[in-house]
């Protein structure tokens, strides 16, 4: 196994894990299917692009703008739409379908507003694109930076969900929403925190992606689908599972492309996805009767 491929797999895997983490957090706690998730990745990426182009700062500093921005949009959506809609009995009865349609609409609005404001064209900036030798592989510096940050956040998330009180409370909410309320976990506040965290991580992932790839207003949709693939691999609502799912997809994708051709990349991702849905819908790590 060449270390070149392993590092490439880790880079895309850690990004996928990061994006899927946010998606899973929001689904796990509130049962909201955020099909606009990839579009918030896109917003993070555009935010980084304009920070770099207008002020010339490093995209690392752009995170300080992008993360509060996407988290802020999350707060606005939470209070502007979901807080209000959740009061209607009709809405809550079909919360998965309704939230889906709302996020679907959000996705269309965000994509087209961005296209209207910044043209639908692809754009990018150069950042640390020199090449270094690392563990026997030749890699661009920006990919190593992306890997370091994404991996740090993923490991941080695992630790957070294992030891911090807030992390444990979130996990409790994912497993037993009603019972969590009974034992005194402030459900509404944790909902809001998860909304913010989910969108913030999407924004962060967007900044990282913009360091190595070109961005466009419609780049989000493929990331949404990839995030769903990863979440299915790891199990819907299983937060640590989605981290492993992300890495696994990164490995499958990188080695699959190396063995065939780059044009098969998308087919491979979606084929894995359909195969998992058919054979292991409960996720690779879930038990057979967990959710059917």
């Amino acid at each position: 196994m060449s270390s070149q491929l392993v590092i490439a797999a880790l880079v895309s895997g850690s990004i996928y894990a990061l994006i899927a983490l946010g998606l899973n957090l929001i689904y796990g706690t509130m049962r909201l299917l955020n099909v606009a998730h990839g579009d918030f990745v896109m917003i993070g990426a555009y935010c980084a692009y304009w920070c770099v182009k207008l002020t010339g700062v490093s995209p690392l500093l752009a995170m300080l703008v992008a993360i509060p921005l996407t988290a802020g949009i999350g707060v606005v959506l939470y209070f502007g739409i979901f807080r209000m809609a959740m009061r209607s009995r009709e809405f809550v009865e079909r919360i998965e379908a309704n939230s889906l349609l709302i996020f679907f609409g959000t996705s269309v609005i965000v994509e087209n507003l961005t296209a209207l404001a910044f043209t639908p064209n692809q754009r990018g900036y150069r950042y640390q694109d020199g090449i270094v030798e690392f563990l026997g592989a030749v890699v661009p510096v920006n990919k190593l930076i992306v890997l370091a940050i994404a991996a740090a956040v993923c490991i941080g998330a695992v630790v957070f969900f294992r030891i911090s009180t807030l992390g444990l409370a979130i996990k409790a909410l994912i497993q037993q929403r009603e019972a969590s309320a009974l034992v005194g976990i402030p459900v509404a506040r944790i909902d809001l925190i998860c909304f913010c965290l989910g969108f913030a991580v999407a924004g962060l992932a967007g900044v990282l992606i913009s360091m190595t790839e070109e961005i466009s207003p419609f780049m989000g949709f493929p990331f949404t689908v990839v995030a769903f693939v990863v979440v299915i691999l790891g199990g819907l609502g299983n937060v640590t599972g989605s981290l492993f799912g992300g890495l696994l997809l990164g490995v499958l994708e990188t080695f699959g492309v190396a063995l065939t051709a780059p044009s098969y990349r998308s087919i491979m991702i979606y084929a894995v996805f359909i195969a998992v849905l058919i054979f292991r819908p409960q996720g690779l790590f879930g038990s057979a009767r967990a959710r059917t």
Partner: protein
Amino acid sequence: MRPRLLRRIALVTIAALLAVALPSLGNDYYTGFGFSLLAWVALTESWIIISGMAGYVSLGHVVFVGLGAYVAALTWTYLPLGAIVPLTGLSAGLLAAIVGYPCLRVRGPYFVILTLGLSELVKFIVINTEAALSMSGRVLFGAPDVDDIFYISLGLAWASLVIALIVRDSRFGAGLLAIRENEEAAETIGIPVSALKLAAFVLSAIIPGMVGGLMILRSTYFEPLQIFNPQTSVLIVTMAVIGGSDRPFGPLLGVGLLVVLQELLWARLPQLYMIIVGVLLISVVIWMPGGVYGRLQRLLPAGTR
């Protein structure tokens, strides 16, 4: 059949017979506009069978349109129009039957995610196949007359509406509504939920496949990225939900509103059009859960519904 159902089918049939006269006006713009209207009616009325009645929201219905279009593009030079149209419907139905199988075993969000991924999978398979055949877009020579395409689309729109009306009033439809309201309970009282879901999914795929075939014969140009554009799925969902996806007459209102808006805005401000579509979708989901038709029904006295 209940008299109310017969009355409604008669109403739809009379409207369709009146529409037959449209091409004889001799204005290609009106005929083209009529085709667009009818195509969207056929798409949304098919979509509500799985997504409105059974409550399994499909966000990737464009996959059936795209597949139908691809089949039509591949067979156009070899087969007559009368054979291509059923073939496109058959291939879309077959795809739905094959991939609908996972939804026999899984429920709720998994189905939605499946539709989302499926449309992308098929899109990339078609793109790669075309690349392997070294084709970049196909031009269809000697495309059929616009009037013929109009008449077929009229037939499809009529059929989709009548099918939706019949299904809504049948045991099958009652089973689908039961699945939407509470799937566990429906299964417990002996409704064959998996079989009904699969049947509804296949039924909602056939006509969109045929519409896809017609679209490509009208535009005479096949390009995978264009025909598999996710925006088509967005528009199907929005038109149906705005009008009201619970009743067969609901989507007609949404189609009317959005197709007119499309004529006004698409050429100059496509992004603004899509933004309005998104805003309408969100507003209707929050403030008008039954869509415009559901709201109208509530205003009318009970006897006239």
